[in-house]
């Protein structure tokens, strides 16, 4: 009886002392995480943004001077009257990296979503040994990126690689292909490895969504004799959509800041250089710490912008099942 009463007062007592107490303890529990997050994510982020407005170099970070927006955009008028534009916003190499990243993201996330959906639907069906298959399919995702990238680099090697060997033996190609060297195939190679690696992740998230759908809906559809494709489009897809949207945004954020896979497979190749690779190169290799920080800041802004647009346009529901 007492238990029921307290549950009742929870439901209605938005202004009560108990409710305020619960809010307070919620914050108390969250505090350690928020502090850690501020230290490991917030502080470096703010410092990067700060450095992007200075002329910092790696050898002399403490002596950085404020230069305003110069790293992003600057205009100098020469004596002859000619105007010279400078900075990240007019840097063709930067825009090329942005394009590479966006192209990679769109293609990889689209394909991963489709394949992930197919895998999830298969895994959602009842069959013997399903548990084992579910575990096995997670393996590519469990291998650290750097390891799988190196592994694939060897498999894609033009002279010794197993991929070329298989394709040659099957008669699909007549000559060994230099997957990671050729500008036409470098991006394809990166995409293949990324899709192999992250499809399991998509499948897992979609599968979780599929399992939330009550089975009686399908039974009802079956009794009514609805075509399976129509069931998929009218029942499964709308119901799995919230989970799908969250999965897509996770993958998209990951894809937009991709670094390790590309760095191992195609290193400094201009055809596959992404925003993160560009930023790293300027930060450390070129001793242009401020310029690299500006690139990181823009990368952060682009990520935020895309996420916000996606949430609004896709009407993503982060509130849970209500």
């Amino acid at each position, binding site marked *: 009886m007492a238990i029921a009463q307290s549950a009742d007062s929870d439901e209605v007592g938005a202004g009560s002392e108990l409710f305020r107490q619960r809010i307070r303890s919620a914050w108390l529990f969250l505090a350690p995480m928020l502090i850690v997050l501020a230290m490991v994510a917030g502080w470096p982020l703010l410092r990067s943004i700060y450095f992007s407005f200075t002329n910092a170099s*790696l*050898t*002399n*970070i403490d002596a950085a001077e404020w230069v305003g927006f110069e790293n992003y955009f600057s205009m100098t008028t020469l004596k002859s009257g000619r105007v010279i534009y400078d900075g990240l916003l007019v840097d063709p190499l930067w825009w090329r990296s942005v394009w590479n990243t966006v192209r990679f993201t769109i293609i990889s996330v689209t394909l991963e979503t489709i394949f992930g959906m197919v895998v999830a639907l298969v895994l959602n069906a009842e069959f013997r040994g399903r548990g084992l298959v579910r575990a096995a399919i997670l393996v590519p995702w469990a291998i650290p990126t750097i390891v799988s990238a190196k592994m694939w680099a060897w498999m894609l*090697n*033009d*002279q*010794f690689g197993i991929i070329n060997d298989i394709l040659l033996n099957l008669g699909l190609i007549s000559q*060994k*292909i*230099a997957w*990671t*060297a*050729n*500008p036409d195939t470098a991006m394809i190679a990166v995409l293949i490895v990324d899709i192999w690696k992250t499809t399991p992740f998509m499948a897992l998230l979609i599968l979780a969504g599929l399992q939330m759908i009550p089975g009686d809906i399908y039974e009802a559809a079956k009794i009514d004799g609805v075509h399976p494709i129509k069931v998929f489009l009218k029942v499964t897809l709308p119901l799995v959509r919230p989970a799908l949207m969250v999965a897509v945004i996770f993958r998209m954020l990951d894809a937009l800041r991709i670094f390790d896979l590309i760095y191992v497979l*195609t*290193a*400094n*190749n*201009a*055809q596959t250089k992404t925003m993160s690779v560009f930023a*790293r*190169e300027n930060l*450390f*290799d*070129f*001793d*242009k710490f401020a310029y690299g920080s500006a690139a990181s800041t823009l990368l952060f802004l682009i990520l935020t912008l895309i996420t916000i647009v996606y949430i609004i346009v896709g009407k993503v529901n982060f509130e849970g099942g209500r």
Partner: protein
Amino acid sequence: MRTALLGFASAMIIASAANAANLSIVSGDTGNGLAVLREKLDIFEKQSGNKVTIVPMPSSTTDQFGQYKLWLAAGNSDIDVYQTDVIWAPQLADQLVDLTEATKDVIGQHFPSIVESQTVNGKLVAMPLFTDAPALYYRKDLLEKYGKTPPKTWAELAATAKEIQDKEREAGSKDIWGFVWQGNAYEGLTCNALEWVKSNGGGQIVEADGEISINNPKAAEALEMAKSWVNTISPPGVLAYQEEEARGVWQTGNAVFMRNWPYAYSLGNGADSAVKGKFDVAPLPAGSAEGAASAATLGGWNLAVSKYSKNQKEAIDLVKFLASKEMQKKQAIEASNLPTIIELYDDADIAKEVPIIPRWKEVFLNAVPRPSAPTKVKYNEVSSNFWTAVHNTLSGNGSAAENLELLEAQLTKLKGSSW
């Protein structure tokens, strides 16, 4: 007085034994470099009582530099000794210990040009460990079989390579290629391309006085020539090769010619090598334009002590030990690295074991430096712009003339009012 001195001396010995230091050396080497380093360190550990740990790195100099730069900027004291590329001295000078005083007893044995390349504003940044100048590796057996001589020009090389490759393939060696080199987009491509350009009379990208000279017809001609090799005498994958990938193809017997550094010599004669005893080396070919002459990019590695090391004294001892005559000799014999000590080029043991070394003295003395001295801290970006232009040309992304024109504009902008 004497007893006092003796007492002092023995106290010193006890103190040094009691304070045995734990040192770390970071090195990204090719081939058996790390194994040879470990052997030398074992000797050092016995002699000095100090422990030394190797921190291995990727062999790409471009990859190493970013990591070292980051460690040094963070004031990392974990690493005491860095193995540094010949081009890094001006970029790392501020964070390395000045070795001038500590090495004045031995520095005179080394080639003055190398010592000079490691001296920034009067400060000896790093101690020479070995020097490098690439060679043209060729298959003696195959050249003899088809009655050819080692090529003197690139055109000759291409013709010989093509002929042998085609005939060998007809004879059943399906996987054989004419010529392998380093075409990946990294520092190694800068070295390769500098050789093509310089050997064709096209200058050295940025001249010693800081003038940007790369946009010229002879340089463009050299790059177009290299482009014509890809997929004819060189595998298409050469555009993703670094030193070790090229050596892989070569050492399994699948290449007629290879451009690589001397380190590949001992390895190619190793027990597990398919080309053991079947190859020799020659200087790289020359171009065909007027004023063309063979050119080899000057490479080489040095040892530097981090300013943030907590055991600087012991670290300097280690550097001097590794750069000593005995150790350079060991390294020459076991890893076929070119010594920086002049005397060792006349050493009978080295001449017997690694005949490439005495022959390489001339090549090395005429080697062409990369423009790291005139471009100072901007060198990495210069090199990156250059290798990108070259890689684009080789992979068919614009013509050599177009890419070099763009490169000149980029370098001019990068230079600003001065390097």
